[in-house]
């Protein structure tokens, strides 16, 4: 037995002991019933939730370096005054709209990752999110999402409703290219409306195969999403609140799912950033707090890891439209019952901007993925990420 395999099983066994019963049983059944690779899949009893901040969130106004005079020089209009910031240390603090996250920070269940990015950054939304979704190098084009590759190497248990639920976006992101990803708009209605078409397997075009595969994924997930579960947790209004509600309902109804990907749209703040980012951050914070409550009610909080991500951060120097243009490295959050809260990475080097006026990365985004793969699921990350990336010490033992 190789080293990676042993490590996975250790983590999987650990998960089995501590997971709530339902998830653990699902994991164990899947592990026994499947092909050899899948015997290690008990690790997927631990849930990963990805939250995409679509458009490219401004990291500097998410975690404000309020003691750095360079910050206020670069942000004469958009700079957030020191006394408005929610302090996390004597040097930096959260955007005021993120105040609801302070309770998690105090419980040390919120890790703040500073300067997440990658070398030779691309400033196109579409190319950069493709780099993030496929976990490629900046100059490399990969056809599949990083989670699709993960699940191809180590499939989640067969009785899971799906490999992943996608909520709030029609784009499959890291689950693109083959994962059993189910896009859900409404968990309750999904089950009711599933088709009864009985398609005969026949050779056809790739588009037809895609439709038939989607249909069979629907049928499988719908069988579980029909289970009726009522949650006491109150979810906020708005698109992101609805996505969080849908996520909690789907997680509650499913026998299992390895990944949930949520999307919060609108962070591309080229103009009038201040009110837009404040509104989005309030939606994000309220939604995350409700997500924590819902998962706690489901007794899943201790086996959930939530990670935020985005294609890039924004340019340190504000533009004349009261906004910021596309940038590079940014701040991201890791939340969970087992997360070791605190600040990670490095403060933004505002004195050492690139020729384009952008920030250098302190944490490679693939290190965040390696952390999820190795320290959360107990999988080897080398094959999926095409190289060895240092993991972050953001998980408690």
């Amino acid at each position, binding site marked *: 037995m190789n080293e990676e395999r042993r490590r996975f099983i250790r983590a999987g066994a650990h998960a089995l002991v501590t997971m709530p019963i339902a998830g653990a049983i699902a994991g164990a059944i899947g592990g026994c019933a499947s092909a050899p690779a899948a015997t290690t899949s008990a690790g997927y009893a631990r849930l990963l939730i990805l939250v995409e901040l679509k458009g490219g969130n401004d990291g500097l106004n998410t975690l404000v370096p309020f003691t750095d005079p360079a910050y206020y020089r670069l942000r004469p209009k958009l700079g957030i005054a020191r006394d408005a910031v929610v302090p996390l240390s004597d040097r930096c603090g959260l955007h005021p709209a993120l105040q609801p996250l302070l309770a998690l920070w105090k419980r040390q269940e919120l890790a703040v990752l500073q300067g997440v990015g990658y070398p030779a950054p691309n400033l196109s*939304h579409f190319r950069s999110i493709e780099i993030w979704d496929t976990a490629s190098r900046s100059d490399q084009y990969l056809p599949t999402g990083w989670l699709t590759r993960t699940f191809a190497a180590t499939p989640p248990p067969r009785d899971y409703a799906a490999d992943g639920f996608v909520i709030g976006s*029609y784009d499959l992101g890291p689950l693109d290219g083959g994962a059993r990803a189910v896009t859900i*708009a409404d968990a309750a209605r999904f089950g009711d409306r599933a088709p009864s078409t009985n398609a005969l397997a026949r050779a056809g075009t790739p588009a037809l195969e895609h439709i038939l595969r989607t249909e069979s994924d629907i049928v499988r997930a719908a069988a579980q999403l029909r289970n009726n579960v009522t949650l006491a947790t109150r979810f906020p209004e708005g698109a992101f609140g609805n996505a969080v509600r849908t996520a909690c309902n789907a997680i509650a109804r499913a026998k299992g799912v390895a990944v949930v990907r949520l999307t919060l749209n609108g962070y591309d703040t080229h103009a009038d950033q201040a009110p837009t980012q404040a509104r989005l951050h309030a939606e994000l914070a309220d939604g995350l707090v409700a997500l924590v409550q819902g998962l706690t009610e489901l007794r899943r909080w201790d086996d959930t890891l939530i990670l935020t991500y985005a294609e890039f951060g924004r340019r340190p120097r504000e533009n004349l439209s009261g906004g910021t243009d*596309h940038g590079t490295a940014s701040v991201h959050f890791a939340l969970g019952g087992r997360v070791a809260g605190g600040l990670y990475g490095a403060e933004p080097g505002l004195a050492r901007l690139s020729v384009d006026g952008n920030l250098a990365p302190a944490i490679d985004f693939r290190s965040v993925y390696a952390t999820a793969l190795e320290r959360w699921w107990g999988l080897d990350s080398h094959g999926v990420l095409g190289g060895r990336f240092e993991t972050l010490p953001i998980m408690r033992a």
Partner: protein
Amino acid sequence: MRCDWPLASASPHSPVFDPATMMRSPPFIRHFVEPLALLVLALASSLAQADATQRLDFDDARHLLVRTGFAPTVAQVRALEGRTREEAVDALLAQTRSDPIVPSPAWTTGATAPEDIPHPGMSADERKVLRQRERARIEELRGWWLAEMRATPSPLTERMTLFWHDHFATSEQKVGDARLMYAQNALFRREALGNFATLLHAVAKDPAMLIWLDGARNRRGAPNENFAREVMELFTLGEGHYAQSDVAQAARAFTGFGVDRATGQAVFRPRLHDDGVKTILGARGDFDMNGALDVLLARPETATFLVDKLWREFVSPQPDAGEVARIAGDFRASHYAIKVALRDLLLSDAFWGARNRGTLVKSPAELVVGTLRTLDVDPGDMRPIAAATARMGEVLFAPPNVRGWPGGDAWINSSTLLARQAFLARATRAMPDTFMAVSTRGGSPSASAEWQHLLLPLPAVSDAVTEAAAEREPAVVIRATMLDPVYQLK
């Protein structure tokens, strides 16, 4: 009333068998000489363009109409049967309109009253009233456009208007003014099949676009790069064919434009324009907007990028690089006449080839409008139809971002497939009435195989279609055929 087009042979849709190569062959020959036909096909494909004189059979005629419009009626397919490819394509391109036949909402014309323009002194209630009016207007506009798609005698115009809406993807969610969205839609329709260079220049100064990509905020001293980046990445060159410095320099050239909210017109303010020297893609000069756009239009990558995208819209998900290069050459030589590129694409062997049939997924608008057109149904109020396309992932006038809709296979995911089937189930519930309406006009097919020819690009895969065929009950047959997964394809 039965129709008399050739009925299904053993493999009318065989993925390697081109019906066009054996049209006019007696059915028994089709049955028995398929291998021979394949050989002929192989020989024929070596004679470039010789196929322009091929005559269309029913499946070919349907293919052309579905791919260049929304789904046709039986009568429309019949009218094209027997023409050569070249005749059919040229007739199609000769008949395109550049204006709508359905009257647009009254508020789309004329000036806006001063009290209707948002201003800083407005009360919260006044703002709310304006917001509600805008919401109602944009819903009305969506319904109007779908009504035009359903009614137009020039469906290719609407398909190209949609194509340009997706290419220059602009969302009312940021523009916030339905009048400006209408004006942009009218521009896309006017140049739908006109000239791409003209269109690009007009789009760059289009008020909705100036708001959408912050051109109206881009001024000398601290340029806003939003439009400059997207015009290179998404509208002309494609990613990888420019550098960040080109974006920054072009952004300077684009400075100085704004939008007069009262008139809904773009305005140029010379004092906010940077008239200094810029270097864009190696070209040096004191470029203004027109100059910078001409630099982009002079690059060969622009024609290639556009033809590649048109190929994915009309031919197949996998462009043939050699053919794209040939057609892009013609497109460029024509100074971007859109019909030149389309004519080449529609006369290409790949367009007619059997292996490319059923390879494209219908967009939500194509699915719903096509269903209504094929059955010749007018629902009156089209706003519920707009809501249906929204559930399928296509909110007209509100693409997800500046890249437009991902399209292709990405139209189909578990949510959108459920929404598509729900629409088709609803649309076919009223089938007995609809069917009577169609059949009393004559020319309606009645047998299952005939409906499959009209509605599907490949043989049906669901056993419901087989079961329905045994019943020979038209409403059941149509419903089963439209609910077959193959109906999602074109």
